């Protein structure tokens, strides 16, 4: 027994070292993104060094995703949950997190990353907030992923957190995030030039989804088809929008494709000079929109074609 002990001890030591070497280094991070735009940022930064699940689809309204128990299964296995934040997912993510029974991704832990917290939101309501104003987000407009500059910054935040959780791939995450951000920063002035050249300055939207894009590129949304955020259009309000379109000589209506286009069609019927463009406002909202840049490029092309 005494002669076997040194062999046994060494064997156990070697086994422990092998296990230590194989464990964390080879296991990919399991990452869950709440929306396809956040998922696209993660895919660009994490690449093949992580395993990614995305909850909402681009064809769905991210405000009103149903908290399917199957999403809880994804969260139960996650090392990191990355959310858009600014209360976009407030109606469904808390119950998914609780149902996932995974303390690693509870709010406040390293496995929980709220990108909205560093997004410098626009349209933050001043004073008290009431639902009489519709579905107003107290922390500001949550759709910051429609701004290429903010998305570039979000990629850096994502890389930092991925690197904290997986130090082996930290350099790769950081490098990819920088490339991603530089690409968006380089393309933004070109998109700006093309939009400026189009001569389009005033537009009409359906929901306030595209406001970060409008703000970045100097477009002015003069009206929305929703009378208030989250409240479906009414005939009376559409008549008001028609008046606004005529008074402002609006040439383009940008209608997110998750909403019915019957109201936009009505506007076009009343004001034939205005063009209606049914656009994708999220990654995956149309089959060809596979990256965040694809979404911006599509919007720029639509604006160019409306001149």
């Amino acid at each position, binding site marked *: 027994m005494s002669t076997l002990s040194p062999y046994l001890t060494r064997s156990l030591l070697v086994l422990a070292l092998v296990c230590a070497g194989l464990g964390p280094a080879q296991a990919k991070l399991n990452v869950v993104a709440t929306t396809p735009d956040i998922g696209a940022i993660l895919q660009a930064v994490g690449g093949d060094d992580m395993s990614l699940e995305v909850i909402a*689809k681009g*064809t*769905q*309204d991210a405000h*009103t995703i*149903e*908290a*399917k*128990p*199957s999403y*809880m*299964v994804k969260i*139960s296995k996650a090392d990191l949950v990355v959310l858009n934040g600014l209360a976009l997912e407030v*109606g*469904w993510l*808390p*119950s998914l997190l*609780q149902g996932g*029974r*995974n*303390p*690693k991704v*509870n709010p*406040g832990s390293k496995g929980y990353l709220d990108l909205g917290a560093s997004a410098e939101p626009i349209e933050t309501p001043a*004073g*008290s*907030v*009431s*639902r009489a104003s519709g*579905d107003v987000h*107290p922390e500001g407009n949550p759709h910051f992923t429609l701004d290429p500059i903010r998305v570039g910054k979000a990629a850096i935040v994502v890389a930092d957190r991925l690197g904290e959780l997986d130090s082996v791939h930290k350099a790769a995450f950081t490098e990819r995030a920088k490339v991603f951000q530089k690409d968006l920063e380089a393309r933004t002035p070109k998109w700006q030039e093309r939009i400026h050249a189009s001569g389009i300055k005033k537009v009409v939207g359906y929901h306030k989804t595209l406001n970060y894009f409008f703000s970045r590129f100097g477009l002015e949304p003069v009206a929305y088809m929703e009378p208030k955020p*989250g*409240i*479906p259009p009414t005939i009376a309000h559409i008549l008001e929008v028609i008046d606004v379109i005529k008074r402002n000589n609006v040439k383009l209506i940008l209608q997110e494709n*998750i*909403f*019915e286009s019957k109201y936009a069609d009505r506007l076009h019927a009343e004001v034939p000079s205005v063009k209606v463009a049914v656009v994708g406002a999220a990654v995956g909202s149309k089959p060809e929109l596979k990256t965040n840049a694809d979404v911006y490029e599509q919007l720029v092309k639509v604006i160019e074609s409306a001149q």
Partner: protein
Amino acid sequence: MPARPPRLIRHISKAFFPHLILVFFSFAATAQTPVTKALGFNPDTSINGLFLYKNGNRGNTSDAQEPNGPSLQEAELQFFSDVDPYSKLTALFSVHQESGEWKFEPEEFFAETLSVPGVILKAGKFKAAFGKHNLLHTHAYAFIDAPITNTVLLGDEGLNDVGVSAASLIPVSWFSEVTFQILSGRAEGQDYFNSKSPNDNVAIAHFKNLWDLTDDLTAEIGASGVAGKNEFTVNNQLQSGKTIFTGLDLTFKWRPSVGGKYRALIWSTEYIGRQIERPGATKNDGHGIATWLQYQFSERWWAQARGEYLKVTDSDSVDPLPIAPHQRKYSALVGFFPSEFSGFRLQYHYLDDGRATPEQRLMLQGNFTIGAHPAHAY
């Protein structure tokens, strides 16, 4: 009779009630402001009010159990917040009328874990994990009223008691959850568990599975079992027997990932069986099934239909009214929802419960929610 579990507030006087409501409404209104965000340790607060107008052929008499006319069907006051990184507390109070008297009662009041991997442990007073409908609060019912299988076999309040619970996910590729609960067995209205021994608790097991058949379609299957003790007297001798409930539920839910704001279809079916073992005395067994369709045909509109069948073998004091061996009920509903925080539902039902004249009733319900209401279960 053994002492019942302590209850926070009972039978608040009519004079005090309006003041209490004002206090809660003031609190909820404040909870919406940025001021409260700075005071972020306040619990999330929501209030739901259900206003109901009824008109039926059995509601015209002075002694009608459910008289025609307007009423406050129920108001629910809910508070919830994380206690610390380890647990969360939920309190839900119900305000409603019983026999003309206002009542303010804790419908649920429980603490549950946030930091235990793989399991949610819960302790307090809560709706038992039995079947599908039993877990719902009144404002989340698929129809204005509960299925007769639930109200007759489980009682108006359903299975709702003080106890402990553990719910765990089974590590498979689909959602599979098993829940075990132990309840006191001494809740009000649950006389089918009327054993006086403090050791005669009620045991519950619930097994729920949900599969994503496609991106748009899910199938959910649940099975539940409840076992407890009852007491009865035969020839002046106190005897004990078992009370067993069984439940099965099946739900298909379709909501397309393209255009899902405007279309959805839900088909649910729930079976409940009750066996009350009373050798030599009235058995009072029963079973029933309810099946219903809910179709969303535009952003704000739903159309629904429900059919129910209930059979009871005997009737005694366990049930509030004499019940015919067979009951059938058919309901139709149209719902209009201006936003996710308000809704109006118009429901008609035809109930053949063995009386000379079947009941026909029309109901109109207004459903309003303010504050930070948590998401309903899928």
